[in-house]
């Protein structure tokens, strides 16, 4: 049985400026597959409806994955054989559903005078309607025998497989500048997705988060270690919820003050069977972190020519 979790917190900076949370997140637990999804509305001036855009992105993802699983037996059989093509189709479908939702929302809720008055006529004419709703999207899917994820724009995916180590499985395609400019609202947005697919490894947990979480860490190691600690708490979901919600609230309050969304899918049996391994990994990570810091502070006066470029 796959279980799942999701939560979004409004950033402290948004609270101060009385802005709504631009993030959205959701999840779908299940026996055969589970989905965790987060989206981060851009929130800047021309993306003035991005809180709706992120919600639509989350909904579009859950609906699309469900649709692909309508004939679950067939999907599970065919998907591993053609995973690249199927993932591309999922991405295209998500963009299509999102655009439909945006269109429907805009028709039901035309741009108001208040929304428009902050732009000159020319400025407003230059903004595409999809841009009003601009958002990122990160989705994690756990299935029987495979794990995959898709992403457009910034955000993170962290997986923990049977060895108990946290890995970031996404290989960013340099030609698709995912972490710089891409968005659900880009023209030809489906071309900007990055994805990963892993087969034959037993998944413990797969986390998706918006960049509001990542930016509260001093370094990449801490970010990965954090997910191992999270995974070690998944054996008691009620406690996990309390710990995770409290911590991302704290991170938003005392970190970069951005909205934060965290979502995950996990295999309940794998979590229970590997609790000791996860705890050992946490202890090992702590030791390594202390060693790294000690080594950093002890290395002084490094000639530039001696460093690796």
């Amino acid at each position, binding site marked *: 049985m796959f*279980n799942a*979790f*999701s*939560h*979004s917190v*409004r950033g402290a900076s948004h609270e101060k400026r009385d802005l709504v*949370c631009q*993030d959205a997140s959701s*999840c*779908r*637990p*299940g*026996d055969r597959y589970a989905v965790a999804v987060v989206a981060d509305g851009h929130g800047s*001036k021309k993306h003035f409806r991005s809180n709706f855009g992120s919600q639509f992105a*989350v909904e579009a993802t859950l609906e699309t994955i*469900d*649709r692909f*699983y*309508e004939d*679950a037996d067939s999907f599970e059989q065919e998907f591993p054989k053609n995973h690249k093509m199927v993932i591309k189709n999922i991405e295209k479908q998500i963009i299509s559903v999102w655009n439909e939702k945006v269109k429907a929302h805009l028709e039901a809720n035309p741009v108001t005078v208040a929304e428009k008055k902050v732009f000159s006529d020319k400025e407003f004419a230059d903004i595409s309607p999809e841009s009003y709703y601009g958002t990122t999207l990160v989705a994690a899917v756990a299935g029987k025998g495979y794990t995959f994820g898709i992403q457009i724009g910034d955000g993170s995916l962290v997986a923990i497989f049977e060895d108990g180590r946290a890995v970031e499985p996404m290989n960013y395609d340099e030609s698709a500048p995912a972490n710089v400019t891409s968005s659900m609202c880009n023209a030809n947005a489906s071309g900007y997705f990055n994805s990963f697919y892993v087969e034959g490894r037993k998944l413990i947990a797969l986390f998706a988060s918006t960049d509001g979480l990542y*930016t*509260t*860490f*001093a*370094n990449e190691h*801490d*970010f990965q*270690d*954090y997910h191992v*600690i999270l995974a070690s*708490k998944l054996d008691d*979901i009620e406690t996990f*919820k309390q*710990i*995770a*919600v*409290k*911590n991302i*609230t*704290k*991170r938003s*309050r*005392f*970190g*970069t*003050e951005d909205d934060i969304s965290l979502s995950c899918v996990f295999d309940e049996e794998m979590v229970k069977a590997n609790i000791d391994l996860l705890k050992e990994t*946490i202890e090992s990570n*702590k030791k390594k972190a202390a060693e790294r*810091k000690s080594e*950093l*502070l002890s*290395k*002084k*006066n*490094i*000639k*530039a*020519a001696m*460093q690796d*470029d």
Partner: protein
Amino acid sequence: MSKKNNDAAEKEITTAAQADLDDDLLDFDDDDPLSATSVSKKSLVIFFLIDTSGSMRGKKIGELNTVMEELIPEIRRVGEADTDVKVAVLTFSTDVTWMYSEPISIEDFEWSRLRADGVTSMGEAFKELSSRMSRNSYLNSPSLSFAPVIFLMTDGYPSDDYKAGLEALQANSWYKFGLKAALGIGSEANDDMLAEFTGTKDTVVHAYSGGQLAQMIKVVAVTASQIGSKSMTLSDETNEELGAEDVFAAKQKLLGQQIQEFINNQDEADTVSFDTGW
């Protein structure tokens, strides 16, 4: 949607609905197992580029060492509010040398006293800085939120082709959007060349004595750190959003104004003879 997952969806643990947080949720003082990976505030890197060539030998380098040791606690106070400040020190003489192998949190930073010797490889220092100012190198912290502060201190003219190094630096986006200041030490330092580095004369200052050196380093470093770590996404006057270039221009202008204001007040209060200081 498949039936099984439909059923499962009913058991969904939580949705993204923004629930009001209970008061006890905000009590962060109790045990948090996730605190092993601490929360990093918005972070800023200050790069000090320091001339340690032979002409700096004696009183200049001695004074500089003392000032920098005193400066660290002052910068620490800048960061106390809402910024994690990291420091990277690149010295240049015949060789180009980093004090630490990567930017160090101001909380952990300890000044390593510098010695002066050799020629002035400033161009090489610019090239080295440019190669390190990258998301794949010294600016790789996830919490990095601000363009860096870059503070150059020198007492003379470069002995290598500094223009080639400066060209490499000028092509680096972090340099373009970074807050730049320069301090000329003694009468040999060339303000025009320093202004080429900063892009404006307003953030070039001069120190002709040990006392001035201490004041200038502290004022420039602390002011630049304060301005560098200021969030400027909205313009106060218009409530319009500022782009990266606007933020850079506004910060560099503010730094120039504050430095010039200090210098003007300083001139009135304490005029120091050019030649008596060293």
